[in-house]
């Protein structure tokens, strides 16, 4: 009798262990952030305070831009509706704290991927949605046509708390030029101060310069110098410690890029279900069980492409057609001479 009880308990214990193990893996699939997002019914997305082409709100409060589209893609994948995003405009200074303190779940705010940010402060970068580099804007009539024309005493306006501040120092130090950094918390004040003549040059990511130039009183009086002084891979960021959510954001972005590579657009996505190419069929959810691997249904990627479009469509709509940077430069697919290259979705 005693023996039987003992044996029984050991069997029960074994099952218990097995059971907890399986529920554990199920729970892992259901990430906390994913669960919260589905419960709330919207994706909490941190964006800039207004950078045309990347994240910018119109008069009616509709956000557009390539950074915005990353959040919309995640909303389409997770909630089935790309409009279910709550945008939080953040300054450069606030952005990481907002993410680590659980105010937002994705930070998609032209943020440069660096080692210390990735490793040291509880963040994880999931990919690159724009390859950028720091440049300088000057007045055309200044006669400065290259960064080599800067002289000691030059004053440079820029944003506070950015990699720009560090690159600027590296750059001017390497040239042995003493300079005056004037750093503002908000981009609008940088533009206003540069416009008024407080600074000789305005330095930030080249895409940012192109976008902010439109806001100057006489955009045609200014130009961006040809040199690029740094690598600025910009991409979405998530909190460290939720690897499922991290995967969802990463593959939402990758899906957009891969869709462009295979020629799948928002217009033809549905018809691609019957494509001969298995890679295309996987992309629109007609083959494989890729959604389940992320804890989502199998149409997640199809919804991204249909509702947000592929990367090329997003770029054209937000950056090229608005006249910010018509030339895609490095942000072209690897098959077309650019460096956009994502791991295969399979």
């Amino acid at each position, binding site marked *: 009798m005693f023996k039987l009880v003992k044996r029984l308990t050991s069997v029960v214990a074994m099952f218990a262990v097995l059971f907890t193990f399986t529920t554990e893996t199920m729970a892992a699939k259901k990430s906390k952030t994913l669960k919260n997002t589905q419960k709330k019914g919207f994706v909490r997305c941190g964006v800039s305070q207004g950078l045309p082409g990347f994240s910018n709100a119109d008069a009616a409060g509709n956000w557009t831009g390539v950074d915005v589209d990353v959040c919309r893609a995640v909303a389409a994948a997770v909630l089935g509706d790309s409009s279910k995003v709550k945008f939080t405009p953040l300054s*450069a*200074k606030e952005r*990481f*704290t907002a993410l*680590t303190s659980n105010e937002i779940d994705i930070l998609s705010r032209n943020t440069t991927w660096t080692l*210390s*940010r990735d490793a*040291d*402060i*509880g963040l994880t970068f999931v990919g690159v949605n724009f390859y950028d580099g720091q440049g300088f804007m*000057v*007045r055309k*009539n*200044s*006669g*400065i046509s290259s960064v080599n*024309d*800067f*002289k000691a*005493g*030059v*004053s440079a*306006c820029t944003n*506070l*708390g*950015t990699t720009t*501040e*560090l690159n*600027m*120092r*590296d750059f001017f*130090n390497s040239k042995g030029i003493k*300079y*005056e*950094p*004037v*750093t*503002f*918390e*908000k981009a609008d*004040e940088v533009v*206003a*101060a540069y416009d*008024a*003549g*407080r600074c*000789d040059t305005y330095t930030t990511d080249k895409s940012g310069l192109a976008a902010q130039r439109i806001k100057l009183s006489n955009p045609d009086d200014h130009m961006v110098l040809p040199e690029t002084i740094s690598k600025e891979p910009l991409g979405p960021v998530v*909190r*460290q*410690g939720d690897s499922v959510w991290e995967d969802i954001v990463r593959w939402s972005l990758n899906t957009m890029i891969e869709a462009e590579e295979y020629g799948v657009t928002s217009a033809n996505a549905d018809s691609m279900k019957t494509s001969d190419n298995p890679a295309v069929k996987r992309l629109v959810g007609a083959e494989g069980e890729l959604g389940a691997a992320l804890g989502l249904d199998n149409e997640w990627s199809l919804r991204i492409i249909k509702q947000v479009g592929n990367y090329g469509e997003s770029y054209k709509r937000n950056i090229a057609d608005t006249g910010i940077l018509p030339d895609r430069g490095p942000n072209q697919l690897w098959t077309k001479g650019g460096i956009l290259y994502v791991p295969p979705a399979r």
Partner: protein
Amino acid sequence: MNFKKILPQLLTLVVVILVFGFFSYNAQVNMENRGITFGYGFLSQESSFDVQFSLIEYDGSHSYFRAYLVGLLNTILVSVIGIIFATIIGVVVGIARLSKNYLIERTAAIYVEFFRNIPLLLQIFFWYFAALRALPLPEKAEPMFGVFFLTIKGFFIPAFIWNNLDIFIYSVIAAIIAIFFVRAYAKKKQENQGTQTPVLLISIGLLIILPLLSFLLGGVDASIEIPVIEQLSKTSFTYKGGLKLPPELISLALALSLYTATFIAECVRAGVQGVSKGQKEAAASIGLTPNQVLKLVVMPQALRIIIPPTTNQYLNLTKNSSLAAAIAYPDLVLVFAGTALMQTGRAIEIVSITMLTYLTLSITISIFMNWYNKKIAIKEK
């Protein structure tokens, strides 16, 4: 017996400890979950960012701690300038409010009502961008007295180049100490013999003679460096040499003093009005001149009413100086709680240091003002 008294205090203590413990535990768990480490070791690391305006030698090769000092000194600088000007404007406007001249009284009243009812941040933006719009470019600046240049890139003023500056400073300190002794001696003499000593004249003489001696005997030597215009590119200029006060400092100090002065003016008005009319009449009736009435009877009593609320205004000004970040003046919040926080990501550490710093600054001002208040309070013998 005393238990009833102690119990509520004990309970409060337990609640405080529990609340504090909960928050620190919560922060600890959350930071651990996200792989964030905690520590102040970063303060000795190289900061690798530059600051446009600093009172001490600093560049990106110095440590984060040095960057903290740069920000702190800039905060103190703008607060001190602000407090001095706010006090001067405040006293003048406060007395003007009591003037029997209708025009002066109304002007002062309109100034007070206008400036204290507009949010400070707006005023800072106004003065900054107004300054940027109104000030000339360096090449177009008209020199004031031939050596001062007020431009959009800053206020360029001549600078002293010193030799043996330390000896000069010692001589000034010695003069100040000597003045204290002279004053003490004069007071005693008046109490004992009833004769007055011309303290002011002697003080001014000491302040001139001792530093002058340091020039003649101590090897102190000062020359003046005047800012000279320099071309940076075809259309852009700046000044070299001399001292440069950035436009951010000027507009911030201006906004802070004009705003705080309105409150100080009201304190002064309340203080003077708080001294009863009978006091003035009594003083006049024993033959004191109007100046003596103000100096010996009204002001000592008015100050007692003025000092405590003015202390609050000094504290407010110091704390309000943190709005500097909006217009790129490199104060503690911009340099340390801004750039340094962003570059290190150490939010809890940096914010805690910044909070402690402001607390220390405020308490220091409070202690000084309380000391002064006690000094002028009625001494009952």
